């Protein structure tokens, strides 16, 4: 367990209305800059866990602390990347990236500087004036990530952002995301259904079980950085993928 946690979940339980338990006494902590991936069968509460962290939904019982404070108090420190790119179709790429900054009252010059910085990070400078419908699926998701990065967050919550992309694009974006994370060192919570993606990206993987949602197992990923396309060829990587797959199959027999 990390020595000085940035995020702490203590016995967090979540139930929507009178429905069944979605999360049951979930406890963990995450150090600043850690990359944690949540993986598990559908309905195990992965996305709910992110929404609790983002303050989009209240906990039923238990506590969440971010930097020793309530997550709502550090809302300005976090950014969320949804499953869909969730871009505003009537705005250009540049203006989409500026939206969160605009909502926070950041002046135009600072917004433009931030936009320029993150467009370079995701290598989309030449698309600044394009509209979302002129972009490919992968480019849209890179804009979505750029928009999140424009806030210079301390924590990134990514809810299966690459799920709809083809394998090649997904692998490229995984590498780009890790490179950006290595520079900026935000704490990341990443939801995925892909074991390979989880192993490639993470410092730790939480395997969640369903009915009710809970952490079934935790796997530390000791692969060295920087991780590149070659990492996927390494024997350690394949062993870890096999190990996580076995654990996942024990909670989700339908998992590959």
């Amino acid at each position, binding site marked *: 367990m990390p020595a000085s946690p940035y995020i702490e979940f203590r016995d967090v339980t979540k139930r929507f209305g009178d429905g069944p338990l979605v999360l049951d006494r979930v406890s963990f902590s995450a150090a600043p800059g850690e990359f944690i991936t949540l993986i598990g069968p559908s309905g195990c509460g992965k996305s709910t866990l992110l929404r609790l962290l*983002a*303050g*989009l939904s209240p906990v039923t019982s238990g506590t969440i602390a971010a930097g020793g404070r309530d997550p709502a108090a550090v*809302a*300005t420190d*976090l950014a*969320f990347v*949804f*499953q*869909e790119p*969730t871009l*505003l*179709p*009537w*705005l250009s790429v540049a203006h989409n990236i500026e*939206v*969160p900054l*605009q*909502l*926070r009252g950041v002046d135009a010059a600072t917004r433009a500087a931030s936009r320029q910085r993150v467009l370079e990070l995701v290598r989309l400078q030449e698309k600044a004036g394009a*509209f*979302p*419908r002129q972009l490919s699926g992968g480019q849209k998701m890179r804009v979505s990530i750029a928009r999140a990065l424009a806030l210079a967050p301390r924590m990134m919550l990514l809810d299966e952002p690459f799920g709809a992309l083809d394998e090649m694009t997904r692998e490229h974006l995984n590498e780009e995301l890790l490179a950006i994370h290595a520079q900026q060192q935000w704490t990341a919570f990443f939801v995925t259904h892909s074991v390979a993606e989880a192993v490639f990206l993470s410092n730790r993987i939480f395997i969640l079980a369903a009915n009710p949602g809970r952490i079934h197992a935790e796997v530390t990923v000791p692969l060295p950085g920087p991780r590149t396309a070659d990492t996927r060829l390494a024997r350690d990587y394949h062993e870890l993928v096999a190990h996580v797959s076995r654990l996942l199959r024990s909670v989700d027999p339908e998992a590959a």
Partner: protein
Amino acid sequence: MSSKALKVLLPALTGALLLALWYAAHFFLISEERRFLLPPPGAVWHAFIKDAPLLLHAAWNTAQGALLGFGLAVVISFGFALLLSLSPLVRASLYPFLTAVQLTPLPILAPICVIWVGAGLASVAVLTFAIAFFPLVVNTTQGLISVDRNLLELFQLYRASRWQQLFLLRVPAALPYFFTGLRIAATLAPIGAVVADMNAGSSAGDGGGLGFQAVIYSSQLKIPALFATAALTCLLGFIFNAAILTLAWLALHHWHDSYERTDH
């Protein structure tokens, strides 16, 4: 042949065919003593030329009524839609009464309107407003409440104020719906203005519109002039629609798929 040329040529050919059929119907399908019921296109054109100053003035009066009523409907429906988008309870309270206004025929509303605001432009504008308001308010409200849930959550996550959510998210997202309503209303407005003019128009101060003129021609059995009046009404509708379509295209073509093509 390029598709652009075809798009001009095909309607022109269809128009020529329809004119030929019209002439054929006049000369070959109708007995001589009943031919006056379907005047040939040439006679309609002559009637138009003969009464052109009168008809164009009437068309201008109708256009004024239609524009005024339509403009009022746009402004007031937008405010109303904002109110309706606040909650399902507000919508449940007000929708039946909005529907009631829409379901009341103009000829019934017209005399009430004449009593309230007098015959002429004011009545025509109010009645045009009544017919254009409903599609505008229903469509705009639907747009305001149909925003992508993820986008709403994004704004919630970034602690957007109610005003920011409204003007940076809901209003732009509602634009395609608003323009759909606008297109329907733009079709209805000239029709509404003409019907209103027939029932609540006034010739005082040369204020009669096309509807009023149609009533006069009808009483005089000037059938070619009636056809010319109908054609002018049709032209007015086309101008209204073309203006709105152009506006919609300018506002939406760069981001909305339904306006992507330039052949609107």
